[in-house]
């Protein structure tokens, strides 16, 4: 770094040198290693300017006027050059390409120059509202209440791969309306509104959820069914109402033989009823549909349940001597219309209530809210003040002002007059949840700040930044307290807090929201492999895929491993279903556990072997090497391919249909306008061809052996996923840099720009000493200028 800097300064002071003169000087210069501006110019001329010149302007770029002696004038362009060099994605494979030494030295020389001249610019994140995940977590942490946020708020627009980007998190009338109605529902549920009227909620068994074995969270000795957590609003009677799967003639199927169905609440059986066989004797109705209606009508019970969250299960009792494999040609025996196993299945469970409510009960939310009880009516305002101050403090994430309380108390009074003390708290809580201080992540701008100044955010603002980064939620009491004492910005305290927060279960938010989006795990629910091609695929496997990669990412975080382990670790997490899919013997039951991936399973190691990622990058009926290659370029190498050209011609359809994926793709790449990018993407994906479209290992396709030979970005050959993985880590800085970039984007809630790249390199470099430990990167981000500071608003987005 220092070397580069001094050389640079020296050159910058030298008189301007013309390109021609530089080129002439280079003829006698060994261009293999780039160590000076002259070398850089020579390399540009030799490898870049055939296409990127003033006439052709390929990709809108000309390098002819780019002056390496003046890097700071064009950092944005130079950063693009660096990326192409580091990922070897330029020059094109069929053009003359630099040697490894030239690639590396050129990139390093440019990076050093860029880093030396970088002007730190923290940027100013746009004022954003909480997104859906953050809202849900905030409610959990504020009120000890888990809500189904998908029914409360619409999904958020994302950008740069994440849905917490400030520019996208704006309000609209529809959103405000939803926030208002969410405040109403959440406050009623948390307090236990005695006026809650009878309502119904239906839980549906997913169509491809396997129904032929004991499912996770189910009582022992049961088969299929559904388990869910339902929040019961009051101590009252509730009705549970089952509906069985019907065929396309609207008739319940599988009633030839007797079966028993049970419903349990928190493990306590509240209902047991037989269906099928002798149990159907004396059914009312004459048509088959009426008979089915009368069966469903019997599957209903009303029982008292105490308020609060409770686990409800509805399932079939396993019959004595019944094997799990009976009539089960495939893994999938489903609640879908086309199931052929001849068994009845549960389709929906509807919970209706409350009836005959006897009171709000003793729920976690009420314990959290009612930290005091008024001694008498005169004491009510005092106690209300205490409760509301505590709630507003955490919801607003800052010290509560008298003005805040003055805004809340009229709502308490209004509610109290209408329905008593608790109704007053409920209405005031509703007002808190509707507050812009809760919904927005506000950061003050000191009036004293001169324009173009950068300034440190306050300790309380830092606490909010930190908790939304690591927990996707509001700060807890410890964090807030330290912030309010202005201790959080102390470096040692900050580091200790980050470590504490990463160790907290709430850091699962990083798994769900950061890894879930970075690795595209959130897409899995949207992907439906074709059931003709993959008859064994079921929702249990889909959820297993998600769980596996989540647990894997979490293990890197919790054990503070090197982020390189994300690519190479020799273990993974499986349950019986997934182990079977992967061909790992000796795993029984629905609990996930860590298993070793020995040398024979080397291809499974790391992210490239995770079934979920392989499925998320496939078509419904076949693999998609292009998508896999694109995924690798985007998410592991930080080098997204350009968008497809505007005019995509139709693929040539020959007389004989292609048999294998590779044949298909070869045709694809025979089209010149497609070839330029597909030549880079497809061969990366080819190396993963041993994994089929649902991530299972295979050695044959259409009767022929799988050919897993591919090539890297520079055209050098590789064979199989393990070789691909090793090649991608040849320069670990590329993968670690990409990881850092993604995490920094997520942490800051804005897209990264060229002026952020020196920081990304610095973070990557400083994590190297500890073998790229996870917490080093997180800490580096938290301590960085853009995370700690804010530019005065004038720091607008520069138009580039």
């Amino acid at each position: 770094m220092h070397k580069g800097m001094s050389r640079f300064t020296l050159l910058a002071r030298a008189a301007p040198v013309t390109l021609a003169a530089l080129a002439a000087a280079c003829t006698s210069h060994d261009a293999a290693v780039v160590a000076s501006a002259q070398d850089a110019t020579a390399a540009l001329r030799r490898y870049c300017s055939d296409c990127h010149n003033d006439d052709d302007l390929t990709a809108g770029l000309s390098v002819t006027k780019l002056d390496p002696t003046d890097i700071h004038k064009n950092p944005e362009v130079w950063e693009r050059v660096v990326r192409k060099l580091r990922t070897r994605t330029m020059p094109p494979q069929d053009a003359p390409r630099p040697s490894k030494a030239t690639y590396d030295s050129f990139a390093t020389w440019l990076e050093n120059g860029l880093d030396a001249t970088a002007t730190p610019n923290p940027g100013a994140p746009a004022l954003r509202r909480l997104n859906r995940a953050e809202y849900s977590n905030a409610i959990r942490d504020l009120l000890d209440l888990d809500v189904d946020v998908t029914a409360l708020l619409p999904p958020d627009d994302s950008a740069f791969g994440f849905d917490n980007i400030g520019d996208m998190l704006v309000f609209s009338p529809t959103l405000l309306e939803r926030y208002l109605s969410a405040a109403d529902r959440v406050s009623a549920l948390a307090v236990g509104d005695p006026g809650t009227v009878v309502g119904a909620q239906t839980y549906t068994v997913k169509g491809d959820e396997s129904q032929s074995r004991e499912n996770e969270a189910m009582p022992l000795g049961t088969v299929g069914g559904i388990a869910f957590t339902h929040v019961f609003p009051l101590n009252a009677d509730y009705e549970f109402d089952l509906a069985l799967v019907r065929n396309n003639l609207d008739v319940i199927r599988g009633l030839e033989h007797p079966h028993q169905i049970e419903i349990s609440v928190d493990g306590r059986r509240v209902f047991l009823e037989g269906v099928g066989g002798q149990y159907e004797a004396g059914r009312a109705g004459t048509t088959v549909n009426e008979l089915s209606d009368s069966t469903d009508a019997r599957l209903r019970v009303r029982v008292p349940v105490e308020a609060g969250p409770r686990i409800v299960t509805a399932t079939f009792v396993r019959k004595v001597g019944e094997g799990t494999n009976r009539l089960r040609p495939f893994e999938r025996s489903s609640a879908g219309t086309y199931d052929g196993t001849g068994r009845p299945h549960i389709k929906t469970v509807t919970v209706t209530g409350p009836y005959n409510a006897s009171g709000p009960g003793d729920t976690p939310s009420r314990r959290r809210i009612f930290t005091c009880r008024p001694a008498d009516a005169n004491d009510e305002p005092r106690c209300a003040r205490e409760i509301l101050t505590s709630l507003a403090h955490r919801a607003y994430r800052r010290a509560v002002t008298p003005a805040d309380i003055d805004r809340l108390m009229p709502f308490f009074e209004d509610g109290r007059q209408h329905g008593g003390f608790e109704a007053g708290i409920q209405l005031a809580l509703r007002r808190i949840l509707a507050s812009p201080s809760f919904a927005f992540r506000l950061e003050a701008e000191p009036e004293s700040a001169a324009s173009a100044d950068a300034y440190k955010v306050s300790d309380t603002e830092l606490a909010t930044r930190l908790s939304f980064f690591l927990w996707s939620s509001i700060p807890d009491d410890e964090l807030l307290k330290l912030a309010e004492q202005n201790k959080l910005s102390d470096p040692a305290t900050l580091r200790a807090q980050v470590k504490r927060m990463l160790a907290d279960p709430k850091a699962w938010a990083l798994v769900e929201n950061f890894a879930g989006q970075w690795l595209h795990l959130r897409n899995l629910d949207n992907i439906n492999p074709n059931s003709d091609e993959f008859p064994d695929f079921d929702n249990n496997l889909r959820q297993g895929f998600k769980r596996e990669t989540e647990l894997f990412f979490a293990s890197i975080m919790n054990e503070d491993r090197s982020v390189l382990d994300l690519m190479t670790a020799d273990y993974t997490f499986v349950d019986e279903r997934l182990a079977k899919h992967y061909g790992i013997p000796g795993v029984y039951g629905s609990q996930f556990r860590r298993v070793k991936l020995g040398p024979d399973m080397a291809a499974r190691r790391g992210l490239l072997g995770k079934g979920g990622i392989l499925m998320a990058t496939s078509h419904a009926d076949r693999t998609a090497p292009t998508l896999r290659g694109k995924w690798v370029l985007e998410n592991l190498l930080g080098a997204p391919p350009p968008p497809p050209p505007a005019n995509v011609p139709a693929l040539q359809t020959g007389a004989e249909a292609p048999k294998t994926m590779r044949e298909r793709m070869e045709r694809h790449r025979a089209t010149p306008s497609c070839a330029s990018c597909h030549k880079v993407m497809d061969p990366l994906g080819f190396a993963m061809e041993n994994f089929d479209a649902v991530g299972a290992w295979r050695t044959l396709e259409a009767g022929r052996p799988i050919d897993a030979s591919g090539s890297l970005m520079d055209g050098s050959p590789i064979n199989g996923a393990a070789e691909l993985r090793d090649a991608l880590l040849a320069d670990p800085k590329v993968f670690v840099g990409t990881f850092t970039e993604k995490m920094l984007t997520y942490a800051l809630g804005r897209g990264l720009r060229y002026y952020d790249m020196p920081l990304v390199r610095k973070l990557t470099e400083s994590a190297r000493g500890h073998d790229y430990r996870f917490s080093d990167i997180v800490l580096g981000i938290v301590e960085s200028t853009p995370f700690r500071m804010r530019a005065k608003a004038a720091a607008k987005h520069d138009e580039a």
Partner: protein
Amino acid sequence: MFITRKSLSRRTVLRGLGTTLALPFLESMVPAMARADALKPTLRFGAVYVPNGCPMNFWMPKGEAGALQFTPILEPLRPFAAYTNVVNNLSRAGGLTVTDHAVSSAGWLSGAVAKQTEAEDIRVGITIDQVLAKHLGQDTPFPSLEFATEDFSGYIGGCVPGYSCAYMNTISWASETEPLPMEINPRVAFERMFGRAGTAEQRLRRSAENRSILDSVADEARSLSRSVSAPDRTRIEDYMENVREIERRIQKTVARGSTSADAMTAPVGIPESFEEHMRMMFDLLVVAYQADMTRVFTFMTGREASQRTYPGLGMKETHHDTSHHGGNPEKMAQHAKINTLFISLFAEFLDKLRKSPDGQGSLLDHSLIAYGHGMSDGQAHSAYPLAFAAIGGAGGKVRGNRYLKAPEWSPIANLWLGVAGLFGSPIERIGESNARFELV
């Protein structure tokens, strides 16, 4: 949460693919609805969007303009021939032959070209539905409703590179920079219209409480805006605009008096079957028209590049993959099948509009519903010619049974400009309009 546990609603959810029984959901609520003023017909506008284009030879009639000819995909519209105008020769995106998914959905109702950007400076144009909402929507609780069927949170990396996902997540823009979120959950849509469960008194009280909350929130926002940066202050001002809009909506709802939502059966949530989901969303739109909750809607029946599969139609690939048929006749026929499914479900909706009395005629007599795609052939992402149909009498202003040809390469914006005129909106330009194409 007004569910009365009727076995009917459960059957609605359970019904298998391919059956055509009438949904009880709608009938159960219709009698309870407050109806619009019967004396003067109210004009209504709707727009139904289908992603991934269509194989044009299965969609567009051939030959000269004149009486409407039905093609395989258009066949389900035959019962509504007298209301139907099919328009050919429309284009989008400044006459580009090919574009992509993001600009297709963003450019359809705006008739504008989406700016290529990831986030901070997204820009398209106000969409025709919002032009009309500003014009027709001020007397109803909702100036407009925006519906969709796909949860886009499962589409990470599924946006067109270089373009903001916002361009694909909605087809409705309140201004050139304000995408409007679309609702996919029938239950949420229902409760938005009719409020949370409770007695008439409870709901009236809730409305009053919401109004005082909004007053207080506006006051708080005003004081907060003093200490933040200038761009943040702008955002808070926008937020306060939203507060005023919601206050207006509450006033309208309260003035309307209590709709007896208790008598209705609320949908349970998002049905697993695509067909049932579509039917429920359409039924909610019928109800919204009937109850005069809104006079303008947009419905994005699928997201561009949709990964939805249609095993019931006997095909293995996703909607998007099928649309890239590569000229393979078998795959083109499959793509046509998907399009036929969409238009059949749309026809069920038209049938309900026609059967809903409205003043001297039916809702269909007094509406104009645009139906179409943002791209032409999905294989090439071509932007010309767009498949487009307008169905409905628009209060007697539009006669049907016609196959119209606009001048070649007419921007679809020209058609929107014509539609704006039809509804009495004075705008002179929209998107890339360069002339006015009249449906009358």
